[in-house]
């Protein structure tokens, strides 16, 4: 079963993530874009689209540690290469595609390295997986602009959590369940097995009548928890003006009242 955690990432992490991606994009642009100027590089976070909402497949680098996708907004990858190289014409389509793909693979590798993933998978045109889609599954998306070139980038929650780990403690330290149970109150009841009577006798009972039971004066009572599980036996005693039971033995754990 493919488990995808539900839940949006917080605004603080989104902001941190945008800054992290923007820094990587700025360095990458400096190395790949021939007309690079810092002022023309812009990275804005947005909300990722559902996987099925896009008409074209994104370029994705994906492995078990997370996925990163590039949506080229209606362009082919050679258009990215031409924009970065600045001067390639239609005759250089193969070169433009090679440059575009290599550049995006390098950008993916830089971001994945920041996430501690040393060997990124190659980019391929792949239908976007659900985990890269809606923000409610923790995906992050950003629009990257290098001058007039715009492309959308998306990373899934796995990668988000590696890039900007969530704070582990959101409050008090956890305690073992057994320790937390310690102070839970239980109601116990002391019950005497009075014996059997016929329904005729039961129907004829009247106020003032004395019913003789089968329980001997020195026989033990049963101690029940919450009226169900018999856990111990004990003898009827007094403690000041109160009744009390003095524990005598332990019952097997699986005795229950019907």
């Amino acid at each position, binding site marked *: 079963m493919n488990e995808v955690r539900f839940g949006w990432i917080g605004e603080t992490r989104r902001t941190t993530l945008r800054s992290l991606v923007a820094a990587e994009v700025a360095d990458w642009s400096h190395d790949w874009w021939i007309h690079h100027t810092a002022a023309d590089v812009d990275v804005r976070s947005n909300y990722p689209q559902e996987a099925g909402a896009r008409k074209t497949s994104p370029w994705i680098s994906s492995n078990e540690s997370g996925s990163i996708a590039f949506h080229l907004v209606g362009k082919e990858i050679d258009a990215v290469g031409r924009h970065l190289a600045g001067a390639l014409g239609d005759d250089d389509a193969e070169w433009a595609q090679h440059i575009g793909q290599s550049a995006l693979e390098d950008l993916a590798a830089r971001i994945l390295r920041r996430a501690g993933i040393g060997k990124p998978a190659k980019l391929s045109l792949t239908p976007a997986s659900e985990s890269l889609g809606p923000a409610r599954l923790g995906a992050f998306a950003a629009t990257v602009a290098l001058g007039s070139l715009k492309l959308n980038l998306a990373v899934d929650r796995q990668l988000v959590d590696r890039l900007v780990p969530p704070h582990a403690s959101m409050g008090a330290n956890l305690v073992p369940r057994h320790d937390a*149970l*310690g*102070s*839970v*109150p*239980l*109601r*116990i*009841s*002391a*019950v*005497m*097995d*009075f*014996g*059997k*009577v*016929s*329904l*005729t006798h*039961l*129907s004829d*009972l*009247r*106020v*003032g*009548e*004395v*019913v*003789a*039971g*089968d*329980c*001997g*004066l020195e026989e033990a*009572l049963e*101690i029940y*928890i919450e*009226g169900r599980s018999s*856990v*111990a036996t*004990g003898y*009827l*005693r*007094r*403690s000041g*003006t*109160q*009744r*009390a*039971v*003095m*524990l*005598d*033995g332990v019952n097997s754990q699986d005795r229950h*009242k*019907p």
Partner: protein
Amino acid sequence: MNEVVVAPIELEEADYEAITGDPLIKRNLALLGHVNVRLDVLIGTAELSVEKLFSLSKGESIVLDAELDAPVTLQLDGKPIARGYLMAVGDCFGLKISEIL
């Protein structure tokens, strides 16, 4: 001697729907007069923590929330049907009924 025919029996399918709404057996407890039922007497209750429960040892006493002279409750199948006072009837406990419906 006459020849006896031996053949398997086929039972008629049971009809699970009542023919009329009236119960077949009238509600007459006298029919059940010979049936014995088991009674319990609730002596008292107490509240303990889980930690306390698991630390109890033999000989230790648990004080119940019932006064010594308070009536006890007679229970049938866990349901209270009467109240009364504990008595000694020979070597056994008895119950003097003080309240019953």
